[in-house]
């Protein structure tokens, strides 16, 4: 049973900007789904349409079977991290959460437990204007967790986090998934998604380019064969004749298309010495770049 359903969704800002173009997808219960795309791809707009902050131009969005605005006590069903800077600078972190909790009919005890979950209890009495970007991000995450929701929508949660914070976030997301929550997380830090998400949605220029389990998408993507050879230039020419994609840097080649066996046999048939031959499974970043139609610099 899908928790989030998006059908033929489009959003136009003014007459010129088509931010989201006929996007459809669903997110199953209890999964972590990564929402990938470059800045300006339309991820945030879709996230905001899921919670009724932005009205679709056309199409349909449902969360937990209905529109967000029709859910009873929506913040206890769906938690959203959309804007880490959306707190009054003069208000303390605790009061910022209390305001939301009060409006949502959530008890103050949840404020303290949410602050503890994001390890911000020690700074809860300080004004938000004194918080670092990472602390504001954690406060926004605490805000999303206030109602102990079954669905979490996290828009770029790793923004402003230091490496330690990123590690903490990964652990946090795994813990959320272990508790059976459904998480839709957008990010342009692909390594972060790769380590946490089961499924991905890849979006660019408002269009959904691919969706599915990471392993399935990776299996369908071309592996990269890495070769090191003193005759790299000669091998490059032969590979290009056979239609392979090749990037060369001195004696190193990154080859897309033929398998490692085919590359090895081609080298042997042409008396080319190889110092290294390695078939590399594509990373999520490779996958994203292939699908988005761009190439990573080798």
């Amino acid at each position, binding site marked *: 049973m899908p928790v989030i359903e998006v059908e033929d969704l489009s959003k136009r800002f003014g007459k010129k900007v088509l931010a989201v173009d006929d996007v459809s997808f669903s997110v199953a219960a209890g999964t972590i789904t990564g929402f990938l795309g470059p800045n300006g791809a339309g991820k945030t707009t879709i996230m*905001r349409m899921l919670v009724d*902050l932005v009205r679709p131009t056309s199409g349909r969005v449902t969360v937990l079977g209905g529109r967000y605005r029709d859910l009873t006590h*929506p913040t206890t069903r769906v938690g959203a991290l959309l804007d880490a800077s959306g*707190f009054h600078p*003069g208000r303390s972190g605790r009061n910022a959460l*209390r*305001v939301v909790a*009060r*409006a949502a009919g959530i008890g103050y005890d949840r404020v303290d437990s949410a602050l503890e979950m994001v390890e911000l209890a020690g700074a809860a009495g300080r004004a938000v204007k004194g918080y670092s970007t990472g602390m504001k991000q954690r406060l926004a995450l605490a805000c999303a967790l206030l109602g102990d929701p079954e669905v979490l929508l996290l828009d770029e949660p790793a923004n402003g986090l230091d490496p330690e914070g990123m590690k903490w976030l990964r652990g946090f997301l795994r813990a959320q998934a272990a508790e059976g929550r459904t998480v839709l997380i957008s990010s342009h830090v692909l390594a972060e998604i790769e380590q946490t998400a089961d499924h991905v949605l890849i979006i660019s220029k408002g269009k959904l380019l691919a969706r599915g389990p990471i392993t399935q998408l990776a299996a369908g993507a071309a592996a990269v064969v890495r070769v090191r050879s003193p005759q790299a230039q000669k091998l490059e020419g032969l590979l290009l004749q056979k239609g392979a994609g090749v990037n060369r840097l001195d004696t190193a080649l990154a080859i897309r298309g033929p398998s490692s066996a085919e590359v090895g046999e081609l080298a042997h048939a042409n008396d080319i010495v190889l110092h290294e031959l390695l078939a590399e499974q594509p990373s999520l970043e490779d996958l994203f770049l292939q699908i988005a139609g761009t190439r990573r610099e080798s």
Partner: protein
Amino acid sequence: MIDLIRAEFLKLSSTRTALGLFIAAVIVSVGPALLVMSLFPRDLLDGEGAAAAAAATGLTVVPMLAVVFGILGMTNEYRHGTITYTYLATPRRGLVIVIKLICYALVGAVIMAVTALLVVAVIAAVAALRDIHPSWLEASAISDFETLRSIGLFLLTVGLMTAFGVGLGALFRAQIPTVAGILIWALAIEGIITVIKPKIGMYLPFVAFQQLTMGGALHVGEDGGLPSLTRPEAFLVAIAYIAVFSVAAVFISMRRDVT
């Protein structure tokens, strides 16, 4: 609904906006009162002396602060981005605006009531020090029905003007242009229109709010003076303005994207 009202009061008590309004109101009302009562000659202040009443004129400027307070209440939500969390917690946007209108009207009126009491206390204290006895400070005059009615109308006007400010803020969102625009409108444009076209001017919002407290005091009618509305008429006009701006704000807010 009760939770929303409590959340709105928590928003107010956890920032300095309301305190700022109170301090500004005290400065513009207590300051002139103190100066008049301290520096004016005694014979101008004693008995039926008109200057004593003039000491409280600072209070007439104060309702304008209430409008600004209302505008800040709504535009701060957009300025600081808290509107995202407000609408996530309460997706019924119309309800958010209505609750804010009510809460700000109440808080604005209470702040002005405290300010007015402070002004009277300061005047009474200085009068006692200078051994002056303004007739309007006598207990019988203060408890007089007319006086109490005037105080009630003053607080009602302040509440309505604060609500008007919330409606304006919800409609226009941009803080500085809205505050600047409304001050220019209230202090300059309405005055010009009232002088050029008095019969239109008396229906303008800030003139109507003023007439609500003054209640036809400006009215000289057929003998050539400025035409003005009676208090009930001014009340209806003020309510109409608040209703129009609030309904427009709710209507537009429901369709507006929060990006």
